[in-house]
C-alpha cells in the first residue's frame, strides 16, 4: 500500500497480499520489528513498477507449503515474544484478530463478483471453501476479541453496551467491507465500459447519418457539380466533427453559426464558401441578427454574383463583431436595385439597424460585391 512491498512479496510467495500485510502489522507491534523489516525490504527490493510483473510465483503454493509458511511465521512471533520485544498480553489476540480479518478480506482466490454471489446465496452450497473461510475468519476474530476482553479488565469500565456496539460495527465492516469495495470496483468498471460503448455508438450513428448517407447520394447522382457539392458539404461536416473542440455540434457561438449557415448555402447553391473566423463569442440578441444578415448576403452572392466562390471573414474583438461577405462576381449598382427586391434593404440593412448595428454594401458592376456587417457589443 505504501511502497508496494507487501504486494511484491505476496506475488513472489503466491499468497494473497492481505496475509502479508497482516504479518507486517503483527511484526510492527513487536517493538517495531515489522516497520524495520518493511523499510529494509523496501530499500533492497527492485522497483516493481520498473520490472513489471516479472516477480511472480510460478505456481500457487500447495496446502503443505501454506502451512509451512504459517508455522514459520508463528515461530518468528514466538521467538520475538520470548525475547521480550512484545509488550503486554495483547500479542496473541491481536495476531488472531489480524489473520481472522485477513481470511475474510482475502479476495485473491476468486472473482469478487462470484464471491459475492456465493456470499449472498450460500444456500446454493457449491462454494464450501468461501463459507468455511469466512466462518474461520469470524471465529478467529471473535476468539481474539474475547481474549482481549478477558485480559483487559479495564475495558469493562467503558460499559458493555459501548463495547458491544463497537464490536458489532467492526465485525460488520470486516464482513461486508470486501463486498462493498468489490461492488464499487465493478460499478466503476461498468461505467468506463459503458462510456466507451456509448462513444462508439455515437461515432457509428454520426458516420451513418452523415458519411454513409452522402456516399449513397453521390452514387445515385449523375451530375458532377452535385457530387462535388455533396462531397464538400460532407467534408466540412466531418472536419467540424473531428477537429473542432466541441465536435461542431454546438451552434451557440458566432463561429459555429456562421459556419453552419455557410454550409447550408454551399449545399443549396453549389458554390464553395471559404469561411475564416478570428476570435469567437457566444451568440446573443445582437449577434443573431448579424448572423442572419450574413446568411442573406451569402445567399445573394450565391444567387446573383456568378462568382466561382464566396469569402466570409468574421472578426470578433472585445467590443465589436465585424463580418465581411465578399464575392468577385458580376457586382451591381446599389442605386439601381429594383425596390421590389427586398433582400438587401430588408434582410440585411434594416435587420442590422434594428439590432443597433450597421451594414455597408460596396459594389460596382464587374467589380464584385463586399458586404460589411458590424455590431458593437459594448
Amino acid at each position: 500500500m505504501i511502497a508496494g512491498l507487501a504486494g511484491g512479496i505476496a506475488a513472489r510467495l503466491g499468497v494473497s497480499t492481505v496475509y502479508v500485510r497482516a504479518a507486517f502489522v503483527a511484526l510492527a507491534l513487536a517493538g517495531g520489528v515489522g516497520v524495520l523489516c518493511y523499510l529494509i525490504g523496501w530499500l533492497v527490493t527492485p522497483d516493481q513498477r520498473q520490472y513489471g510483473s516479472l516477480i511472480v510465483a510460478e505456481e500457487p503454493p500447495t496446502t503443505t507449503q501454506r502451512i509451512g509458511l504459517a508455522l514459520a511465521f508463528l515461530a518468528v512471533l514466538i521467538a520475538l515474544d520470548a525475547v521480550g520485544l512484545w509488550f503486554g498480553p495483547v500479542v496473541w489476540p491481536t495476531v488472531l484478530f489480524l489473520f481472522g480479518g485477513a481470511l475474510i478480506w482475502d479476495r485473491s482466490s476468486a472473482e469478487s463478483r462470484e464471491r459475492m454471489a456465493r456470499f449472498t446465496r450460500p444456500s446454493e452450497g457449491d462454494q464450501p471453501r468461501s463459507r468455511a473461510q469466512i466462518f474461520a475468519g469470524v471465529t478467529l476474530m471473535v476468539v481474539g476479541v474475547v481474549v482481549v476482553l478477558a485480559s483487559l479488565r479495564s475495558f469493562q469500565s467503558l460499559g458493555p453496551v459501548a463495547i458491544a456496539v463497537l464490536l458489532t460495527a467492526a465485525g460488520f465492516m470486516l464482513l461486508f467491507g470486501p463486498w462493498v469495495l468489490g461492488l464499487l470496483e465493478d460499478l466503476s468498471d461498468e461505467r468506463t465500459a459503458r462510456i466507451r460503448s456509448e462513444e462508439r455508438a455515437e461515432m457509428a450513428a454520426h458516420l451513418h447519418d452523415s458519411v454513409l448517407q452522402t456516399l449513397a447520394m453521390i452514387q445515385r447522382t449523375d451530375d458532377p457539380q452535385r457530387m462535388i457539392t455533396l462531397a464538400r458539404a460532407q467534408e466540412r461536416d466531418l472536419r467540424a466533427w473531428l477537429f473542432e473542440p466541441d465536435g461542431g455540434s454546438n451552434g451557440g457561438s458566432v463561429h459555429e453559426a456562421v459556419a453552419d449557415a455557410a454550409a447550408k448555402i454551399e449545399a443549396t447553391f453549389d458554390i464553395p464558401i471559404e469561411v475564416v473566423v478570428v476570435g469567437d463569442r457566444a451568440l446573443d440578441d445582437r449577434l443573431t441578427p448579424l448572423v442572419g444578415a450574413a446568411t442573406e448576403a451569402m445567399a445573394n452572392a450565391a444567387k446573383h454574383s456568378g462568382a466561382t466562390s464566396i469569402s466570409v471573414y468574421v472578426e470578433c474583438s472585445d467590443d465589436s463583431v465585424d463580418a465581411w461577405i465578399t464575392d468577385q462576381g458580376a457586382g451591381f449598382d446599389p442605386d439601381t436595385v429594383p425596390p421590389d427586391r427586398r433582400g438587401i434593404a430588408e434582410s440585411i440593412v434594416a435587420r442590422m439597424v434594428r439590432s443597433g448595428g450597421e451594414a455597408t454594401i460596396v459594389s460596382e458592376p464587374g467589380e464584385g460585391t463586399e458586404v460589411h456587417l458590424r455590431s458593437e457589443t459594448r
Partner: protein
Amino acid sequence: MTTIYLVDDHELFLSGVRSELSERFDVVGWSTDVDTATDEIRKARPDVVLVDVHMPGGGGLAVVRNVHATNPEIRFLALSVSDAPEDVIAMIRAGSRGYVTKSIDPASLADAVERVASGDAVFSPKLAGFVLDAFSETEPVEFDPELDRLTPREREVLRQIARGYAYKQVAARLSISVKTVETHVSAVLRKLQLSNRHELARWATERRIV
C-alpha cells in the same frame, strides 16, 4: 524554368498535380514516402517542393525538417486536405513558406508555386485568419516588439487576405504596391516562424499543438 518536386502519398492526387503544373514548371521528381523524398530532394535540389502534410512515417513535417536542416535554400509549399490550425502552424514553423489546401484551383496553385519560388510567402485566407487569431491584439507577457506583435499595416494586409483578396487586389485596395504586400506577408511569416510569443503558445496549446 522553375524546378519543382512533389511529395504526396496519394498517387492519384500526385499525378493530377503533376499534369497541372508540368506546363509552367519543370517537375524534377516526385515520391510517395518520407525517406525517398528526403534523399531525392537533397540530390535534385529543386527550387520548390510541394509537400503533403499527412503521410505515413512522420508526414510532410519530417520532410521539411530533414531537408531544411541540410538545405535551407530549398523552399517548401505545404499542400494538404487538412486546414486544422495545428497542421498549418507546425508546417510554417518547420520552415515551410506557405500553406494551401488541396481544394485550391490549378491556376492559383501555380501562382502560389511562383510566389514561393521567388522567395515570398503564400498565405491562404485560412492561414491569414490563424495568424490574426494567434497574434491577437492583447499585449503578450514577455515580448519582443520585433517578433511578438504585428504592425497595423501587416494586420490590415492579413485582414484583406482573410477576406479572400489576392495580393494584387490587396495592393490596389490599400494603395500600395504588390511588392509591399509581399514584404508585409514575408515579415509576418518570419514572425510566425521565430516568435516565442506567449499568445502563440497559449493558442497552440488550446488547439492541441505541441
